[in-house]
């Protein structure tokens, strides 16, 4: 029988594996260096071209443009969500005419550019001025802001209807049957059982849609709405200073990144009961 009389003396830590220089590493360093160079160039451009006068003149305009962009997108998303509900239900109905109309609407608005839709509404409906004046709607279609809002609502409603439909259809059949077996009326079953599960599925696409809308909203600048992009174009046309676009880029990136992080937080919070 043997007994251990002495312990193994402590050993030095193993040598750390040397990080070898690979092609990927070189490429990574090169690309990062390029990014840093670009960032330095842009920062130098901003610092060299800094003009207190311009900042005081156009800074407040940028902020008002930011507000126009945010309010436009916020209203468009809310009204689009309201409009998308009947479209989604029409799309799911077994009535072939309703279904066909909803399908045509969604297909039309999803496969034409937002810019073309905006032109069609702003310039196109403008040629029906006498008729619009007769029905008392001219004040609405005369104003570029309203036209932008209108086309955004129509556009996002088509996308949101598809999101909603996909989410509702993703709820398994057994949930409907279970609700029916419990004797719940259809409306209650939908509101209390189907919708909560559907909205969790729809959460991420909704976030993507809001981000897309935020980015798409820049097109209203072309029909003379002074949103963030519009103010940028205004400032550029006055100063011919490239910085104006960089500032707009910073604003847009900040909005989109904030939205993305808020949405990721919301999703993590709302689906915490599904985590295992």
């Amino acid at each position, binding site marked *: 029988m043997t007994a251990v009389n002495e312990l193994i003396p402590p050993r030095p830590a193993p040598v750390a594996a040397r990080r070898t220089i690979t092609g990927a590493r070189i490429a990574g360093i090169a690309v990062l260096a390029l990014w840093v160079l670009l960032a330095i160039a842009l920062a130098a451009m901003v610092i060299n071209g800094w003009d207190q006068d311009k900042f005081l003149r156009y800074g407040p305009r940028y902020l008002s443009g930011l507000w126009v962009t945010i309010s436009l997108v916020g209203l468009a998303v809310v009204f689009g969500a309201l409009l998308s509900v009947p479209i989604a239900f029409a799309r799911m109905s077994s009535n072939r005419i309703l279904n066909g109309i909803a399908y045509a609407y969604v297909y039309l608005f999803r496969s034409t550019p937002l810019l073309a839709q905006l032109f069609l509404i702003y310039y196109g409906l403008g040629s029906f001025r006498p008729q619009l004046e007769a029905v008392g709607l001219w004040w609405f279609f005369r104003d570029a802001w309203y036209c932008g809002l209108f086309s955004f609502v129509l556009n996002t409603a088509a996308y949101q209807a598809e999101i909603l439909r996909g989410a509702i259809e993703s709820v398994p059949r057994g949930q409907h049957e279970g609700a029916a077996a419990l004797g719940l009326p259809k409306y209650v079953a939908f509101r209390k059982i189907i919708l909560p599960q559907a909205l969790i599925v729809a959460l991420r696409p909704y976030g993507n849609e809001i981000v897309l809308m935020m980015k798409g909203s820049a097109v209203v600048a072309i029909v003379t709405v002074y949103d963030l992009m519009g103010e940028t174009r205004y400032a550029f046309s006055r100063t011919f200073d490239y910085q104006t676009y960089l500032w707009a880029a910073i604003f847009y990136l900040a909005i*989109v990144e904030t939205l993305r992080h808020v949405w990721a937080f919301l999703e993590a919070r709302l689906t915490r009961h599904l985590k295992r």
Partner: protein
Amino acid sequence: MSGFFSALFTALDPLCGPVGLFTLIGSGTLVSCGETGWGDEIAFGVKVTISLALATLPVGLVIGFLIALAAQSEEKLLRLAAGIYTTIFRGLPELLTLFIVYYGLQILIQSVLAWFGYEGRIEINAFLAGMAALAVVFSSYSSEVLLSAFRAIPRGQYEAGDSLGLHRWRTMRLVILPQLIRIALPGLTNLWLILLKDTSYVSVIGLADILRQTGIAARVSKEAFFFYGIACLLYLVLAMISSFGLGFVERWARRSEVRR
């Protein structure tokens, strides 16, 4: 030979050829082809839109593929660099990207040339600027699609390639890429449709695409609703044709899959 091909294309032109839509229906109206109508101008716009989208596609795909490779590499720095690229260009509005590329490239080229002692105004081609901006946006989106497709391919596929003694990029070409295309195709189809719509932005920097040509026609003829309606319809038709064609491509890519 080239004369033959151009004659063939003229004969088969779906809008203004001898059996074209505008020639058959639109003669004598605002969209007739020739001196009196806008048909040939709009047909030219359609050509510009299609060629811009087709020219952007391969560039965007290649850049997107490289970024997807970088984003899944083991090297941290490379992942960081790819992450910066996708974050920036997915967060910027396409219109803003277009302006930044259009004016930024001019400034860049001008300052580089000024270094070599050339002082003069450089005007870059709107087509090239539009192509660069759209390719940048397309590549940042397609890199995400390709990255998720890469993640869907099991590790065993790479290991099998190694154990067969294939070189790394032969594994990529012969084993990974065919599966990658099949998995990524639905996402890429979506991106193509988005690209087709995004080409409308280049009308803002003065490229004669569908929207610009119809816009000119609308302003001159005061028939805005009619011409912008035509623009929307043309985009709709392009989207229909491409989703029809891509359906074939998808079926071709799935030809070796198990039928269920």
